[in-house]
């Protein structure tokens, strides 16, 4: 699978309250959550400016803080195709695989991408291309078990099979 979009850059330690503020968590409807995606971040008007397919590119520890799956749900429902970061907070990382938001870890890619650059991500090979600067980067390989989860169609599909449902 390939993703293609423009980069939106964010700093270090973007927390899940910045991705979707808790004041909107009286619903779990993806469309409602998406309306507030990145509202308390350094780009509060992200939803007004982004186009479907665009890519979030962030420094270290993206998604720290609360365990709310509403955060990756909001990003996905907003139309963001994938997130590239230097590193991800643990629960956010796990949530993304469970609910199906593609994420890629690569410090070099983050350093080699500027806001607005056109990015192509080859998810199957873990290759990130900056089409604006014609540079190519390799994402950290996904652990084997996570690949198994993705292949099974996410955690619930995997669980259904295991539980014979």
């Amino acid at each position, binding site marked *: 699978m390939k993703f293609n979009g423009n980069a939106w850059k964010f700093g270090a330690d973007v927390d899940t309250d910045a991705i979707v503020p808790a004041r909107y968590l009286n619903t779990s409807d993806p469309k409602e959550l998406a309306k507030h995606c990145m509202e308390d971040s350094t780009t509060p008007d992200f939803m007004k400016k982004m186009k479907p397919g665009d890519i979030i590119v962030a420094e270290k520890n993206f998604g720290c803080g609360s365990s709310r799956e509403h955060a990756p749900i909001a990003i996905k429902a907003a139309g963001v195709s994938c997130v590239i970061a230097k590193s991800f907070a643990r629960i956010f990382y796990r*949530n993304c695989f469970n609910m199906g938001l593609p994420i890629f870890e690569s410090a070099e890619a983050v350093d080699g991408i500027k806001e607005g650059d056109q990015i192509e991500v080859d998810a199957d090979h873990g290759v990130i291309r900056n089409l604006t600067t014609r540079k190519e980067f390799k994402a950290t390989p996904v652990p084997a078990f996570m690949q198994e989860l993705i292949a099974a169609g996410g955690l619930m599909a995997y669980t259904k099979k295991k539980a014979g*449902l």
Partner: protein
Amino acid sequence: MMTITEKILAAHCGKKEVVPGELVNARLDLVLANDITAPISIKEYRAAGAKKVFDPERIALIPDHFAPNKDIASAEQCAMLRQFSREHDLSLYFEVGRMGIEHALLPEQGIVVPGDVVIGADSHTCTYGGLGAFSTGVGSTDVAAAMITGEAWFKVPETMKFIYQGKIGKWIGGKDIILRTIGDIGVDGARYRAMEFTGEVIRKLPMAGRLTICNMAIEAGGKNGIIEPDEITEKYVSKRARRKYKFYKSDKKATYADVREYDLTGMEPQIACPHLPENVKPVSELRAINIDQSVVGSCTNGRIEDMREAAKVIRGHKVHPYVRMIVIPATQAIYKQCIKEGLVDVFIDAGAAFSTPTCGPCLGGHMGILAAGERAVATTNRNFVGRMGHPKSEVYLSSPAIAAASAVLGRIGRPEELM
């Protein structure tokens, strides 16, 4: 040679030994979710076509975040938990009037015990490490799967050991110790790792302080926080435990990814400044910071010991005319104990509000939201942008003693300034 975290995980996946990095499928003693996270779990559970949970005695659904229902949408979410609990005959659903903040309630009621493996769709599930359990926060989908299978997969984490020595000052407690630590290693300093807290200071620390320390392990990115159980644990657990429990201890020759030592002698109360829990400063550097609100409560500092500490500081004083002080005991039992000990009188006489248990203001839900430009001192756990209300408001994280003293002073300050 294993750490306590490794031993508990090994025991729950039927192995003699596990090593950091290994993927294990562990049996769960308890699965937890709240009114924010459970609705997604319930939807996923139903979408999978599941009809039966793995064990109706081991799933805790607790409406505590936006409960008592703050608006219609929140009421609908709480109703989902209630309905699901009735359908599946769950014994650990706690209705308003019986409920409390999940991470205070479950240890208090003996529902989590030492040696357990617990997952919860709430990042502060790591609190139970204070009892000597392995517990960690996950997302709603993990909880949905666990409600069906009673199992979850984990990567066995490396462990960082934190050793605290010295003699701590009168108003120093668990909150100051964990803030000092997060200030040192940063909000991702323990990412994916277990944080094991030890040393003479921890060995003397009451259970409330231990729970506070482990509660905030997530604020350093930790997978879990944990403290070896001892006589203090035994005394706390023996009269509450609803299940058999087991004490695990780290082997002397266990392997640690990092060992850090702190001498806490003479350490001042610690405060995390906006907008990250790692922006930690000693209180003396912040005495020019005026405040509009002081909050004492949350899963971090809403226990009876925290109520006593705040009441001790504020007794005989008045809340500053420009400050709103909001005190929220974390459970009904704590609420009742506050009445019994006359603490409610102390707070109300001082001019503070005293509320029924809820997570409320900690995550900007209700019961004390900040306007643009307002500033709070809070005993809660996060001070991210917009955490307690308007994105242009600010939160300073502190101990109950500092929050109480600051409420009287109208600015950040310490109890000694009231004497």
